[in-house]
């Protein structure tokens, strides 16, 4: 079911309960966000995607995060007011010391007119560069591996292998966390034959056709076992797999 809402005065339509952040982005609006991924349930951690919303018949506009806000009929949304920008800027200031060099943060700083950091860089963080968006933990869980976890709370919170272990024993080395991390702080190093990630050293698997290593043996084994794609495709790198598909499509054409 679609609902109608207004975003900065412009009317828009969207499926009921869709994330307000996604809706705004779909109509071309811009809202800073560091912990959001369209395919993963929101946790609203970064507190940057702030907007003001007013529900019909509900008086004043309230400040809220948009990534975890489901849209409803008649919603009035403001995506940038002085209040919104001021609070976004402060929350960004709180994250900057952890990843002072991350382009994703710089981009947001620029859009908010934040020029000078309020606080000095934090040194000695358990995972330098991490801003605790938990995207890595969530993407890993969504893929069914649960190799990572958020550990501890308060100013001791961190992400990493569960139970504070130094090695993520359930990690298959698929690299999804590395891919999704907004600050690029998850180290993943490939040598000719192995991949190092989260304290593991995993043997690489080479494409049966072109001979290029494209994932780990462990990841390929899981792909075969799950059977989401035909077993023989699991042995091909992405390029060769596409070619393979294209070739197989040929007779129909």
């Amino acid at each position: 079911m679609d609902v109608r809402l207004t975003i900065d005065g412009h009317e828009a339509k969207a499926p009921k309960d869709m994330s307000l952040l996604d809706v705004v982005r779909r109509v071309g609006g811009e809202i800073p966000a560091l912990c959001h991924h369209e395919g993963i349930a929101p946790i609203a951690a970064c507190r940057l995607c702030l907007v003001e919303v007013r529900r019909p018949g509900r008086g004043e506009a309230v400040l809220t995060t948009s990534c975890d806000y489901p849209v409803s009929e008649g919603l009035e949304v403001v995506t940038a007011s002085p209040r919104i920008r001021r609070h976004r800027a402060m929350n960004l200031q709180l994250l900057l010391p952890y990843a002072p060099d991350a382009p994703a943060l710089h981009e947001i700083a620029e859009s908010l007119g934040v020029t000078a950091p309020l606080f000095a860089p934090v040194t000695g963080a358990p995972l330098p560069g991490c801003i605790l968006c938990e995207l890595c933990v969530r993407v890993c869980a969504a893929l069914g591996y649960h190799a990572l976890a958020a550990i501890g709370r308060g100013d001791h919170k961190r992400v990493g292998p569960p139970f504070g272990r130094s090695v993520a024993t359930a990690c298959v080395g698929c690299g999804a966390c590395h891919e999704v991390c907004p600050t690029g702080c998850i180290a993943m190093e490939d040598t000719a034959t192995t991949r190092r990630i989260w304290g593991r050293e995993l043997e690489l698997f080479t494409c049966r056709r072109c001979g290029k290593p494209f994932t780990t043996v462990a990841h390929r084994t899981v792909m075969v076992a799950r059977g989401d794609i035909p077993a023989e495709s699991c042995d091909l790198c992405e390029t060769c797999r596409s070619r393979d598909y294209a070739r197989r499509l040929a007779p129909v054409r």
Partner: protein
Amino acid sequence: MTARLAGPRALTRYREALTRARDPGRRVVSVCVGTGCRANGAREVYAALRAQAEKHGVACEEQSRATGCLGFCQCGPLLSVAPEGIVYQHVRVADVPEIVERTLLGGETVERLLYVDPATGRPCRTEEEIPFYHRQQRVLLRDNALLDPTSIDDYIALGGYSALCRAFEMGPVAVLEEVKRSGLRGRGGAGFPTGRKWEACRDAAGDLRYVVCNADEGDPGAFMDDALLEGDPHSVLEGMIIGAFAIGAREGYVYVRQEYPVAVERITRAIDQARDLGLLGESVLGSDLSFDVRVSRGGGAFVCGEASAMMASLEGRRGVPRRRIIHLSERGLWGRPTNLNNVETWANVPQIVLRGADWFRSMGTERSTGTKIFSLVGKVNDTGLVEVPMGATLRDIIFGIGGGIPGGKGFKAVQTGGPSGGCLPAEKLDTPVDFDTLVAEGSMMGSGGMIVMDEDTCMVDVARYFLRFLASESCGNCTSCREGLWRLRDLLGDIAEGRGTRDTIALIEELADTVKATSLCALGTSAVNPVLSTLRHFRDEYLAHVDDKRCPAAVCKALITFSIDPDACNGCTLCAARCPQGAISGEKRQPHTIAPELCIKCGICRDVCPRDAVRVH
């Protein structure tokens, strides 16, 4: 095991049999073995009492009981003797033989064990004579003294579970209306009207509903809920059964913190006893109601007391709050309609059903009805649990019941509402304690913590202390709360350590504003209360720290210096002998001096000086 009671009439007969067997005039000795008294050896006192009584051939099984907290923990271990109502305080094992011989056998009072009213110097023989008690209105805590919390028979003999029978007579709709009309508001912090919450849950779509009791009690120093669960567990359970009946729930949970092993044991036992008697399980008391309760232990994170975090924890997930667009009443535990209430909220329910909404409304104020239990701690003469009607003033509680500030010191502030409550100054002592007034004053009711501070307290230091707790108890989800709180803590540290400027205060205010406005749950949004309320009511003290680098209360070590007043010092050399730094020098019978570069401000010299010659500025 006793047979299940077939219906309300069977319960009445069961109660009659109990009361017939018990002589109302018999002598019963109660020893409080609540948390406070236990820490002072109450269990040993109780064991000694039974041994002594046995020696003298007094049938102690019948005549002595170990009870839950009686509130006056300050004077524990407490021992009381019925029917006379004599109360003995600070009872030691060594006092037991005398009590047995003189009071139990001889019928006399042991004068030296009585509480002495400091105002009049008169010994108080009974509870009614002790000012701490006679200014209270004890509705929920009253029975703690009268029952052995491990005995369902004690509870039933006192009329327990008759509220449930009354509820069955009224029917679920009328019960809910009565609770609504009573004006009862949640005792866990937010003060949400209980009846409305029940109604939302009852009316939510779905066939399986839950009722949950929040016994996480994470506020440091608070023990209201602990005292109820330990001291009168069946009252909480009866409230839950009535709630389940009104809402239509089939299952219930009690979420208790792991650090309360005795409360866990008591409520677990109470549940088993109730089940054995047919007060839980299929067809409760022969009615159509089928309801059972399980106990779940929380790991002790403060944030797990927050409703949505608790649901996650109950489901076996990490206790992290999540946004609730759809209320828990509609989609709570495992996505089903769930009604969560605090321990004390549940304990009020049987009373309301039994005595009626009008009776309940007759206590308290228009918008905050009934009584409230507070845990009164800090710099106050009589600490403990106090139960007063809502709307009692802070002055009534701190001075009337608590007996004021010890050592003739001045009152400075009181913090209400747990770690994230606000601090109110002396000018606010006549504030009536109810949900709305406290919030309007920048504090909150919370679950009933009340910490009194005297003139020797530095409010910057206090704010920093609470921020330290909150920064480590934040679940760590939100940037604003996780990062904001430790930053605030450190900025307060800057001020306390002499590095602060007016800019520091401005930054604190700006940052606190964002933490409050943008954090997800009430931990974050209320955590700035200690800072903002002290800035509001004690701004001068902050300014003294940043402008004059001075701590008016002489607490912040970086901002104080110790010196010896040459006119007061008679050169006794005590301080010089005790200074761990060897910072004090001087000839015998000559004024001494402190070398500031060596002094570590430990304060030992001030403590040992017999002439009060050590000055702190």
